[in-house]
C-alpha cells in the first residue's frame, strides 16, 4: 500500500538539514548555555539526517529487485 519508510526518511532528512543548518548559524549565539555548552542542534541534526537517509536507503533497496526483475 505505502512504504512508510519513505515519508519517515523524507521527514527526518528535512529535519536533519534544517536543524544542522540552524545549529551552524547559531554557534556563537549563547543559546547553548542551557544544553551544557553542547551544540545539540548540530548533533541531533546530523543524527536525524543519518536516520532519514538510512530509512530512504532501506526503502530503495527493498524496491530494487522487483523493479529490475528480468522476467
Amino acid at each position, binding site marked *: 500500500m505505502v512504504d512508510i519508510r519513505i515519508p*519517515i526518511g523524507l521527514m527526518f532528512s528535512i529535519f536533519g538539514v534544517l536543524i544542522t543548518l540552524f545549529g551552524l548559524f547559531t554557534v556563537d549565539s549563547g543559546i547553548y548555555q*542551557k544544553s551544557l555548552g553542547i551544540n545539540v542542534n548540530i548533533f541531533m541534526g546530523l543524527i536525524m539526517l543519518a536516520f532519514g537517509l538510512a530509512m530512504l536507503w532501506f526503502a530503495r533497496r527493498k524496491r530494487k529487485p522487483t523493479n529490475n526483475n528480468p522476467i
Partner: protein
Amino acid sequence: MKVELGWIDYLIMIIYFIFVLGIGWFLRKYMKNANAFLEAGRSIPAWVAGLAFVSANLGALEVMGMCGSGAKYGMMTTHFYLIGAIPAMIFLALFMMPFYYGSKARSVPEFLKLRYDEKTRGLNAILFAIMTVLASGISMYALAILMEKVLNWNFNISLWISALIVLTYTYLGGLSSAIYNEVIQFFIIVIGLLPLGFLSLRDVGGWSGLKTHIAAITPQHFAPDTYLTTWKYTGSAASNPMGVEWYGVFFGLGLVLAFGYWCTNFLIVQRAFAAESKTAARKVPLIGGLPKMFLPFLIIVPGVIALILMSDPSKSFSLPVDASSGKPIYDYTIIMLLKHYLPTGVLGLGITALLASFMSGMAGNVSAFNTVWTYDIYQSYIRKRTGDDASDDRHYLTVGRLATVVGVLLSIASAYIASKFGNIMDFLQTIFSMINAPLFAVIFLGMFWKRTTGHAAFTGLLTGFIVALLHHGLTIPQGATTLFKGGWLGHIHTYPVEMAQNFWAAIIAFTVATVVTVTLSFATRQLKPVEELKGLVYSLTPHDIEENVPWYKRPSGLAVIVGVIFIIMTIIFW
C-alpha cells in the same frame, strides 16, 4: 515558567503536521470499504504494526505521567515498562494471538460474542466505547492545559487544532492512517526526547553522578539507593516510595493490570489484528516489546534527574505548585525538563514529540472507538447486514467515517468536562483498570477452559467491575482530599499511596471475576456447541506448525530474545 519558541521550532511542528496529514491524504484512495477503513484490510507488516502497538500506548498522559512518576517514585516506575508490560506482551503473542487473529473477530467485543454470547459482547462494547471517548478527551485536556500554562497557547485553539488534525487523518485513511502515523510518531517521540535523556544524565555526571546526587537527597527513612532500584526495597511497603510490597507489584501490576491492559484493551490489540498474517500478528507485541524496554532511559531517567534539579537551588529548576494542596504538579516534569535543557531548534523537536505522543494516543482511541461502534453496536443492534454485500460495505464505511467524526466531537466535549472537574482524570483511569481486569479474567478463561459459559462470563464481568467500584468507594489513599480518589461510600481501609490502591483494586476485581465465572460455569449449561468453539479455545484448536524459517524469525524465537533482554534489564535495575 513560560517558554519562548523560535521560528525554527514552529517550522518543525508545521512540517510534522504536513507529513501526518499527507499520509492520511495519500491513503484516502484505498478506503473503499468498511474493512479497509476499520481493519486496515489486515495488510500491515509486522514491524509497522509492532511499532504502532507500542506507540498507541505512548499517549500524552503516558509520557507526562511516567516522567512525573520518575520524579515521584524514582526508578521503580520502570516496573510499568518491564514486569508491567513484557510478560503480558509475550503471553499475548504466544498464547492469545492465535485465537484472537484466527477467530477472524474484528474487535475484542466481537471475540466475546463468538466465544460467549451477545450480552457479554454488548456489555463490553458499550463500556469500552464510553471509556475510550472519555480517555481521549482527558488526554486532550491534559495536553491543551500544558500548552496553555507553558507555551502560552490558547487552550481552545490548541484543543481544536490538535483534535482536527487527528480527525482529518483518521477520517481520510482510517486505521491504516492511524497505524502508519503511529510509526512516524514513535520515531519523533524517541528522537525528540533523545537529547533530553543525554543532556540530563550528562548534567548530573552520568550514572555514577546520578547515584551520588540522589543518595544525598533521599529521605532518611529510605536506604540511599532506593530511588535507583526497582525490586530491592519492596520487602515492605514502608521502605519504598511507591508504598507497595513485591507481591503487590508482581500480582497487581505484573499479572492483573498488565495482562488486563496489554492483552484485552482493544486500542492496543487492534494493532495486531491489522497485521498481514497470523504469524505477523503474533510478532506484533514482541516487536513492540523490544523498544518498550528502553523507553525508561528517555522518559523515567530524566524524571529521576528532575528530583535532583529540584533540590539544588543553583539549577533554578522547579515544578509548578498546585494552589490548593501545595504539592508540585508532577505531570509538568517532562515539559519543564525540555524547557530547562533544550535550546530553540531541538526544543521544537521535543515539543513536537509531546504533540506526537498526544496524537498517537488519541488516534488509537478514535480508531478503536469507530470500529467497536460500527461493528459491535451499530451492526449488531441498530442496522444488521442486509445480505447485499456491496451496499452493506458502502453503508458501514459511511457509518465508520461518521463514527470517527462523532467520536472526536464527543472527545472534545469530554475534554471540556475534564476542564471543569480536574480530578475526574485520575478517577477515570482507575475505572479503566476496573473494566480491564475482569475482562482479562473472562477472556483468559474463555480461551483456555472450554467449560466457561456465556452466562458465567457476563456475570463475572459485571460483578468484577462492581466489586472494584465498591473497593474504590470504601478505601482511600493517604492524604486524599477529594471523593474522586475514593471513599465515597465509607472508609474501611487506608492505603499508603494511590498506586497501592490501584494495584489492589485490580487484584480484587480479577479474583472476584475469576471466582464468579468459574463457579457459574459449573452451574450453567454450555450453550455453544463444540463445533463453534473450534479456533477459540486452546484444547479444541489444532496447533500451528511454525513456518520453516530461522528460529529468530519465528514468534517463539523472538519471544525468547525479548524474554532474555527483559531478565537482563530486571537484574541490572534490581
